[in-house]
């Protein structure tokens, strides 16, 4: 089935989405991917899951966050609040019936509070930020520069800072440091079943793609995601 490319409007920009929308779909699941570079590593597997969901009559879509992927907005201008707002707009304009998020996507998915939520391996912002800072420090060291975490955070107060390739604004960095997934009334949370162990009611088969050095795919993970979401929406 062909992909659709709907758009949604936020802050005077039309942002790109990729969607699979089978006729007569029983549910419309908005997928909020992990943040920043983790998105790159998970995207293909998520699209594979979308194809599987489509075969079961479930529509799904991934919205671009402003400043990310195909967005023409500047990443340095973005804030977590802005992204949360964007997800809310996307869910509303694309007429989502469910929200499914991964990792740091769980930090910005709480806008459409009335919709049922599904979260896979939700992540707190602090550890995500820590990883990015470590990567930046290591890259600087290779280039012969010594940078400390405090220097980076101090610089962030003045201007956007390049953290592992992404130019992030001070408010975004501060917000990430403190961010935790919000408690939601209607939320199914699944973790990854550790390699070699059986999945159970709340753990699905999958490898932590977001830890990899470069994007790849995990077909078993994609199937597990689709199976779990299809059952969850009652398809």
């Amino acid at each position, binding site marked *: 089935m*062909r*992909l659709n*490319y709907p758009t949604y409007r936020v802050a005077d920009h039309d942002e*790109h989405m*990729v969607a699979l929308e089978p006729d007569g779909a029983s549910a419309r699941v908005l997928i909020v991917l992990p943040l920043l*570079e983790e998105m*790159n*590593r998970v*995207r*293909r597997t998520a*699209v594979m899951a979308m194809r599987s969901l489509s075969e079961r009559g479930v529509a799904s879509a991934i919205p671009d966050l402003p*400043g*990310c*992927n*195909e*967005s*023409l907005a500047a*990443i340095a201008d973005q804030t977590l609040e802005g992204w949360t707002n964007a997800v809310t707009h996307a869910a509303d304009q694309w007429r989502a019936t469910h929200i499914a998020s991964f990792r740091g996507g769980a930090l910005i998915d709480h806008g459409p509070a009335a919709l049922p939520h599904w979260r896979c391996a939700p992540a707190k912002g602090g550890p995500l930020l820590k990883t990015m800072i470590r990567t930046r420090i290591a890259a600087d060291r*290779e*280039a012969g520069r010594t940078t400390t975490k405090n220097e980076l955070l101090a610089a962030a107060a003045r201007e956007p800072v*390049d953290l592992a*390739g*992404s130019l992030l604004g001070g408010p975004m960095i501060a917000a990430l440091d403190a961010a935790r997934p919000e408690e939601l009334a209607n939320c199914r949370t699944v973790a990854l079943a550790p390699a070699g162990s059986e999945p159970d009611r709340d753990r699905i088969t999958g*490898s932590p*793609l977001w830890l*990899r*050095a*470069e*994007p*790849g*795919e*995990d*077909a*078993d*993970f994609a199937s597990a995601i689709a199976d779990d979401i299809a059952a969850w929406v009652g398809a």
Partner: protein
Amino acid sequence: MRRFLQFDCEGTLLAATLDEAQGLTGLLIVTGGNEIRAGGFAGQAQLAAWVAEQGFPVFRYDRRGTGESEGSNGGFLSSGPDIAAATRAFRRACPDLTRIVAFGNCDAASALMMFGNDAEIDAYLLANPWTIEQPVEAAGNAKSEDNPALPPAGAIRARYLDRLKRPDRLLADLLSGRIDLGKARRGLSQMVGKERASGLASDMATSLASIEAPVTILISRGDMTGQAFMAHWRGKGFAAARKPAGLTPAICDTASHSFAGKDAQDWLRAQIREVLNARTAA
């Protein structure tokens, strides 16, 4: 105007982004590794937007088995048909195009070198071409070893594995950055000089020598991949490829494989714009 489309490659649907512009010369961006077509840190998407602002349309796509495209991932060694299909799709999307310049970094540069001739490309920008033969399947594919129907890339890779001369240990150290850069460079030159070029580098040299369109090679001075290529470039294997006058790799004073950072990006963009603006010799 940025728009999104899909096109066919041997029965498989590939996803693409087109940045529209009025120019008759267009830039085709071929993506390296398994990266999505927006690129690491949305770098390719940003580059495309800038190039389109300069007046040149830009086309980039997810090859089979990557990003939003269908199909299975055969790695860069099987990406020739994808490159050819992409140039055809680019021309269909922009019927006024008279010239396509293709840009690729890392193994995308290698793929262009080897398969560009089959794709009607008018000029090449090849950055940090990948010459290192990996002893394991493409990083990131959890089930690739279980794939019973190996794509042609698998057969090609098996052939290269048989001819692999470098000890795995050295390769692992090179790829992990544990080796001192200066030493690694001398070691690579020694290694390349002593033995005949690896299968992949040798095939790349042969292909490069057969390309008649203008080629620009871009190298990051401090990048492992770039250094490995330069070691091969200076060796006997690339003697025929070095012949065309003016084919001297342009070196950027950066350690970044992907030309990250303002200075390296400005340098890269200037190189790209120069080739886009060039008129082919009559």
